[in-house]
């Protein structure tokens, strides 16, 4: 080992640093999907939203020189895609899952088409905050360089948790997701609530995309997303539609994803690809343990097309 001062501590440190880096897009997409699903709709199109968000963030950041304008652009793009999903789903006899798959392909294809000229140039990237200034060990410093978007995401999770309980919008979203009859009987428009919830979900997913192109890996190319958008949708089910659990699930997933590279960095190279599959094995294992054919999912919004 290069400096030999921390030895095997490299592994947990790298896993921690990796968890923070890798989990950020998961965190944003899963929090966004959490809002959408709590209103009674599933938006599988968030994979497309993520990639469109990454492309538009990179483009705007390159053109304006401000990465934060890029983040905003990614959010707006995501909200527009969310509005498209909600708009199509509000037509009679339209299935939200089918629309989601169509939008996933649409978003990905559109992003590749519009993003062709962005592969070459370099855009301004998002800043990170150095929490490791006190240490001389380069691994510690690297692991504690934490990006600002992650901190924002960590703050959004408890805010959402609180908002679902104590704000009018939180209560309305839950009502639309649990019983559209009840919402209608109170004189609320369920379609309108779901439109806004899907737009909010798209906004967050778009920001998740901006992280990919503006921080880590930090460039725009067609191999940018490896299915984070779709995995995050599964994370929401795994997190039982609870924003705080979405946070922990994203971190666990990110940590598992960082395991392979971390082990490689200390010289464990056998089974590298197996360790890279750790997040997916983790997901499968948890799904099998927590699900049962005899009972319905606890916490699932009753109006979701998968629970009805």
């Amino acid at each position, binding site marked *: 080992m290069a400096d030999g001062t921390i030895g095997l501590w490299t592994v947990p440190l790298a896993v921690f640093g990796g968890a923070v880096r890798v989990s950020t897009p998961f965190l944003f997409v899963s929090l966004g999907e959490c809002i959408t699903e709590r209103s009674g709709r599933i938006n599988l199109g968030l994979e497309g939203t993520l990639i469109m968000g990454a492309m538009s963030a990179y483009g705007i950041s390159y053109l304006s020189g401000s990465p934060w304008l890029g983040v905003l652009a990614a959010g707006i793009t995501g909200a527009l895609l969310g509005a498209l999903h909600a708009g199509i789903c509000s037509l009679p006899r339209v299935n939200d899952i089918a629309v989601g798959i169509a939008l996933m392909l649409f978003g990905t294809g559109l992003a590749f088409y519009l993003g062709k000229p962005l592969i070459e140039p370099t855009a301004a990237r998002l800043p990170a905050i150095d929490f490791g200034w006190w240490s001389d060990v380069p691994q510690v410093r690297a692991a504690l360089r934490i990006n600002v978007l992650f901190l924002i995401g960590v703050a959004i999770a408890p805010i959402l948790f609180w908002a679902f309980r104590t704000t009018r919008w939180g209560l309305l979203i839950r009502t639309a997701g*649990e*019983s559209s009859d009840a919402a209608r009987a*109170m004189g609320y428009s369920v379609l309108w609530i779901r439109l806004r919830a899907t737009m909010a979900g798209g906004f967050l997913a778009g920001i998740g995309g901006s992280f990919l192109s503006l921080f880590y890996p930090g460039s725009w190319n067609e191999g940018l997303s490896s299915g984070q958008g779709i995995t995050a949708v599964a994370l929401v089910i795994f997190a039982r539609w609870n924003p705080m659990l979405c946070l922990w699930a994203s971190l666990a997933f990110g940590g598992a994803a960082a395991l392979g590279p971390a082990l490689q960095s200390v010289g464990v190279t056998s089974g590298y690809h197996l360790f890279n599959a750790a997040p997916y094995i983790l997901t499968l294992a948890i799904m099998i343990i927590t699900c*049962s054919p005899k*009972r319905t999912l606890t916490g699932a919004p009753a109006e979701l097309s998968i629970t009805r």
Partner: protein
Amino acid sequence: MIIGETPLPSGALGVDVVAMTMRFGGFTALDNVELKVRPGSFHALLGENGAGKSTLVKCIMGYYRATQGGVLVGGREQAIANPKEAHALGLGMVYQHFTLVPAMTVAENLVLARDDVPAVVDWTKEKKLLAAFLSRMPFKVPLDAKVSDISAGERQKCEILKQLYLKRRFLILDEPTSVLTPGEADEVLGMLRAMVVAGDLTILMITHKFREVMAFADDVTILRRGKLAGHGRVADLTPDDMARTMIGAEQLTVQPPRVGEVGEPRLELTKLTALDDAGAIAVHGVSLAVRGGEIVGIAGVSGNGQRQLVEVLAGQREAESGEIHIRGDLYSASRKEMRRHKMSLLPEEPLKNACVGGMSVADNIAFREFDRAPFASGGWWLNRSAFRKDAERKIGLYKIKTRTPDTPISALSGGNVQRAVLARELGGEVEVLIAANPCFGLDFAAVAQIHAEIMAARNRGAAVLLVSEDLDELLELSDRLVVMFHGQLVHEARASEANLTEIGRHMAGH
């Protein structure tokens, strides 16, 4: 509330419906209907299923826009475009299906229902206000309990409290007592009656229970097939007058008398336990024997495990433990066993539980026998003309109203779907019959026919297990009555000696 400047008179509101017609495409649901509800009165709206009662109140509440005619609130014509505008006028409605959100607490549901939900809810303050409101109300509900955890009776009280909390002055109740025990029904209606007498509230109640009309209502309006069939003061009418006005000239099937001997135990349940969808125990150690030539009725408020019990018997749900025996043979609801023991099922919601909606009436009638002669040769080649012939015979015999035997069964009315299931299940020999709420939501003619068929099956020697939420139906048909509460059988009585008050007490778990 924001309706402070509304010029309507205070206290109970009167509502008049003038010459209302409502068409859905080519179908006329309401034809020139008049309704006059005096302020400060308890008004009953009677009619069979499909008579237009729900359409009428939904037009009042602004759910539907009537094709013609208008609504007068407090003597003034009002154009009510949506439920929100009806709410602003002080009109409220308690729906037959609960409109509470099951995953939320009672307090959340109450606050949510307000028109002015604050952007950020201060729960400490709201709970204090709610507690103060509840202390002025005649019945209590647990504020912090989740709605999914409270009983059906408490939910109905919650629905009514919600309307009172919203300061409604004209309240529509759609079959409010269908989920309550007789005791709970009397309690809730009695308290509402007191509020009406005090002049705070006007009530329009949709119902089909004459007992409640006679005991609580001042006036009654009766609809038949979308038309006004009669109205008047309850004091001037008898239940017979009202029934005749509801049904019109239609002839009802006469129920055969109770004859024959009670035989040997045929269907035996031993310590049967089953879970519900959430994994909680729904049926808890139920042991019961039904003899041939006997109808055993299971009474209970909906949601006490009856559904899961029937699903186990129907093979739709696995039992956790316990055994079912028919004629001494272990029974696990396979198709072979059902056929051998001549087992018949009339599940609740027949379109969902006993039919394939998109398949034809003839196919649905043939489900039990379709893979045997004469319907199939060699067990696989289907003989369509045999399907058709059998279906035509049964359609005539059971008076199923369908355009052709090839019409998809989902196009039939509820009563005719149930008649088709009846034709399939009771058309051949029957040794064991399981029926669950077989008459729920059906009209008088269908109910009379179904009751007659069930009684006839009993008289032919079948062992009948009848699960129903309708006590009158159980008392009419059963030989023996058991009460189910929280998944257990808690009380048993001979139907002829059954005491309504005592059964109601056991249904409520006391």
